[in-house]
């Protein structure tokens, strides 16, 4: 049995590209990942972004993936739940889940990285936790009730949540949902481990989706050279990263990089990864950076599926 499920997560970057090109390339990545034996592909939802975070409609995109790469499981990490109508979201999810034969994994966040989008939806980001919890309650009722068509009760067991709050992590465990870790800048030892422990203590059957940037290359220097322009862009969005050296920056945001051996060693040393993964859990490498091209992304996925993940106990 495989030690975990292997997926990948993309934030759907594409500075200067038109949306048609961005989405055609993204479909190619999903099709290649299916060929490589990945268990699933995950996307992040962002609103009103022009260069980075180009996908506001994950489930519409997944409709196309269902036709192009029907063997992949399809996940969101995350859907910005405060900005969704939970009934319409439940309907979209139900249709997609029926279309794909039950392949959907639905992950929710409160929108901490999307606070600039709330006003356009007539919402106040200060209320984002309450909006998230209310909408999740409505969505859960819809999935479990008799009104929603098509009926999709099983999807209730494939919900995930992200949080940076230990109390909320325990509540996610009690609710029976999976816990997504590493969707933003979170220190694995000081932040993610306490979240994981609080969650696991409260959960009957814990399952984790753990996001890690993974950039295999010839060696560490080659990976750092490739990542340098992306780090410049990334730094602008996070004040706490100002003044760090590239090495420090990469360490802070958990970028595992270098040769296959170096990446495997670095992932083994990650304090909130292999010790948490189980067969119900997902390892979700991010291989796209702000400036990367699609062929390089696919090559990194190939190295992960053929060399790195097998060394960590993953089996196709």
């Amino acid at each position: 049995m495989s030690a975990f499920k292997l997926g990948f997560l993309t934030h759907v970057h594409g500075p200067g590209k038109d949306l048609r090109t961005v989405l055609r390339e993204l479909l190619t990545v999903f099709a290649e990942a299916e060929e490589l034996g990945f268990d699933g592909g995950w996307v992040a939802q962002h609103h009103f972004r022009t260069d980075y975070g180009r996908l506001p409609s994950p489930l519409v995109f997944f409709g196309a993936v269902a036709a192009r790469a029907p063997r992949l499981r399809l996940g969101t990490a995350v859907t910005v739940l405060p900005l969704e109508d939970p009934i319409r979201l439940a309907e979209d999810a139900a249709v997609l889940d029926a279309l794909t034969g039950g392949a959907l994994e639905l992950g929710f966040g409160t929108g901490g990285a999307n606070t600039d989008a709330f006003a356009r939806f007539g919402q106040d980001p200060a209320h984002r936790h309450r909006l998230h919890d209310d909408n999740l309650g409505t969505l859960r009722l819809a999935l479990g009730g008799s009104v929603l068509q098509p009926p999709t009760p099983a999807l209730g067991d494939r919900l995930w949540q992200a949080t940076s709050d230990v109390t909320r992590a325990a509540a996610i465990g009690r609710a029976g949902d999976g816990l997504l870790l590493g969707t933003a800048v979170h220190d694995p030892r000081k932040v993610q481990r306490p979240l994981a422990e609080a969650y696991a203590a409260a959960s009957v059957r814990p399952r984790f989706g753990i996001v890690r940037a993974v950039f295999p290359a010839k060696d560490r220097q080659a990976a750092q050279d490739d990542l340098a322009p992306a780090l410049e862009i990334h730094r602008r969005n996070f004040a706490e990263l100002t003044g760090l050296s590239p090495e420090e920056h990469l360490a802070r945001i958990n970028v595992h990089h270098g040769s296959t051996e170096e990446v495997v060693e670095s992932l083994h040393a990650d304090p909130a990864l292999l010790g948490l993964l189980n067969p119900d859990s997902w390892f979700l490498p991010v291989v796209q950076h702000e400036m990367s091209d699609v062929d390089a992304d696919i090559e990194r996925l190939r190295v992960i599926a053929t060399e790195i993940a097998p060394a960590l106990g993953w089996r196709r």
Partner: protein
Amino acid sequence: MTFHLGFLTHVHGEGRVPAGRLYRDLVELFAAAEELGYQSGWVAQHHFQPEHGRLPSPLVLLAAAAERTRRIHLGTAVTVLPLEDPVRLAEDAIVLDALSGGRLQLGLGSGTPVVDDFAVFGRDVGNRHAEYDRHLRTLTEALTGHELSERLWESSLRPQVLTDAAVSGRGLLLGVGPADRVQAGLAAGYLDAGPRTPRIAAVRGIFPGSSRAAAAAQLETDVARYRSLHVRAGWAPHEDISLTELLRLMNVQHGTREDIVESLRADPVFAGPGTHLIAAVQAESSTLGQALDRLETIATKIAPELGWRP
């Protein structure tokens, strides 16, 4: 005359066809229709319907159809606009339009007062027209400068909505009700407002059979439920009208190929200002095979008689 030929389905599923099979069949219907030369395929949005109208999320399904096809345009007839968040709808529509290479045709309607789906969304069905107008403003603002603005359609009985649609470059969708004479009046109002490039789609049930009577008899059970729906909508005088009269009021063309060609030539919308003929070929109990047969007959025998070339 030349016209654009499309098809429409309300996504019925006789008996207990599982939703997954129903949706995958629907994607194949788009692929088959494209092969036959159809220029567009349209799906209707219905909420919370277990048997009739089983698709609440047209854009998710059309994304799958987009990936399975190359040329055929992908339409909604209609999206129930008062029940959508117009900003999220604009986002979904732009993503689908990009995925399909600019093939989305987005049809909008205000919903019907005879079902209780508004309450589930926490909305008052009595406000549906005001909500429609408000959401349309937000949607069109969000789409400003996007080429999709040229591919919006509206289905409405309100003269002011149709005038605005004409002035703003949106098309007019005329569906299973009211009867064709009333629709001809709506189309005239739309044209009077002076649209630069008028687009008027006649959605018509088209059911070929060995004779008018035989085709009508095949539809009798399926259309029975429309007697009360049509009376409640004000489109039929009472429920005791004959089957022939009900089918006429529903704009259902049926019979031999010759019968259908003749009745379409007499259709005051299609044979008048209509630019698009959208064939609805699925009744409630229709199988996928029957729908495919009807699409083929229409594309190879009926539409060419009327001047259409694939």
